[in-house]
């Protein structure tokens, strides 16, 4: 049974049991929770369905209560449909998906926290765009979600998935570090490639601060879902190309914890530093503080 505390341990279990990573994670979780596999699969299926319907619930004309965000997903889709993008079809679609979901969250739509509400755009953006462009059965997406959740749990256990504790690297960074191995799963990569994709995704957003304007899950959170998805895609592609993280994956996650603990209070979801403390940001600062 996986303890969900070390990537090295997870790879070792995989070598011993011969079970795919996703299956090992599912079985361990069933064992820990005392549920059967059918129940677990049904729960994961429900999460996937909720991601799909959340994406479909997007309306470009809607704005958040503060008026700060809304409509950017629509702009990106329009630009993409114009056909002359810098990033190409797949990446443009991922970007649009991340914006849509981030804005759905800000506009009080029903979303799936992955791992948090603020970072809810990364995983569906890459998975659903992958399905649209490269094709994937629902079953394969569900397997990818198990991989994502398993890596996320190791990060939560070794470091943090809370912006208040570890800064944005713990939210968007964790989301990217979950989405990267999920993509490797979809592309048929090895467990080692998943581990390195996760590590590279963490490394490349290490130190990202949580500095929401007005303390709201809007600016810069929505657009950081885009950079999180880009991080995931590039880490997955590097891993599939055989590129590995020089620093071992568990040590990368430990570094994330240490960096998070070193971040000042003002840069951990207090809405008091970084972008929140700019002249623009101060206009939205809660009166009481």
């Amino acid at each position, binding site marked *: 049974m996986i303890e969900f505390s070390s990537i090295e341990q997870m790879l070792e279990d995989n070598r011993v049991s011969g079970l795919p990573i996703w299956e090992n994670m599912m079985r361990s979780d069933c064992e820990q929770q005392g549920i059967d596999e059918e129940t677990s699969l049904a729960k994961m299926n429900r999460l996937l369905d909720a991601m799909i319907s959340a994406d479909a619930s997007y309306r470009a004309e809607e704005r958040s209560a503060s008026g700060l965000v809304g409509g950017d997903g629509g702009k990106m889709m329009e630009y993409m449909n114009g056909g002359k993008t810098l990033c190409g079809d797949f990446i443009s679609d991922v970007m649009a998906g991340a914006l849509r979901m981030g804005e*759905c*969250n800000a506009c*009080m739509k*029903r979303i*799936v926290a992955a791992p948090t509400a603020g970072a809810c755009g990364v995983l569906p953006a890459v998975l659903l765009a992958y399905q649209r462009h490269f094709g994937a059965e629902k079953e394969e997406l569900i397997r990818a979600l198990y991989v994502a959740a398993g890596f996320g*749990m190791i990060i*939560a256990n070794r470091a943090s998935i809370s912006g208040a504790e570890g800064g944005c690297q713990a939210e968007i960074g964790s989301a990217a570090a979950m989405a990267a191995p999920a993509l490797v799963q979809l592309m048929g990569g090895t467990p080692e490639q998943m581990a390195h994709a996760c590590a590279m995704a963490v490394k490349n957003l290490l130190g990202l601060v949580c500095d929401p304007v007005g*303390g*709201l899950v809007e600016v810069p959170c929505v657009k950081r879902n885009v950079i999180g998805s880009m991080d995931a895609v590039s880490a997955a592609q590097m891993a599939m190309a055989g590129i590995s993280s020089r620093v071992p994956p568990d040590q990368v996650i430990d570094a994330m914890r240490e960096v998070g603990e070193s971040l000042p209070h003002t840069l951990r979801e207090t809405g008091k530093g970084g972008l929140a403390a700019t002249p623009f940001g101060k206009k939205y600062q809660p009166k009481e503080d």
Partner: protein
Amino acid sequence: MNLFDILGPIMVGPSSSHTAGAVRIGSMARALFGQQPKTARLYLHGSFASTGAGHGTYQALIAGLLGLAPDDPDVPNSYALAEQAGMSFSFETRTLRDVHPNSVLITMEAEDGRRMEMGASSLGGGRIEVFSVDGLRTAFSGELPTLLVQNNDQPGCVSRVTAVLAEHNINVATLQLSRGGRGGDAVMVIECDQEVYLSTVDEIRALPGIIQVTRYSLEGAV
């Protein structure tokens, strides 16, 4: 923590603490009250007060009082639903002492004039803690079946109540005691590993010294 704490919950955005947690606080208040209140006053503290508007905290609390779940797409429409349901409500900002920044005090009144006051905090990730009921200090999460027993502060109450639970094979997970003052009203908060049946609750109600018993069940609120 399990895989579905990392992926999930399914919730109405934008914030697990300020939105999903707020819905859960509202529905906890409704469950403890035992019915939908006719009127509710909500006193918002700290970050709930200062960033609540932008997080939909207000609508989320009302949605919970109406019995909506954190993933109900109608959460943002709760004001209109409250009007249809004949529930009136008002909000105020109030600084509460010694509580988490995401806290609210809710007073509820029923048609017949019955009242209850509950204070609760949203701790993050949608988890909540009820820190007071009718002015008496508590600390429970609603993650386990819970009994709130208000009793006269006199010898023997705790042992009589736990004896009834033991008779029905209900294991006590945690037990907290607090009181307004010596010899006055006291409250026992009992988190249990098993659901407490209504017949058991009636037995406890009939014990000497018991003023009121409130049951919180995981098998569906009101």
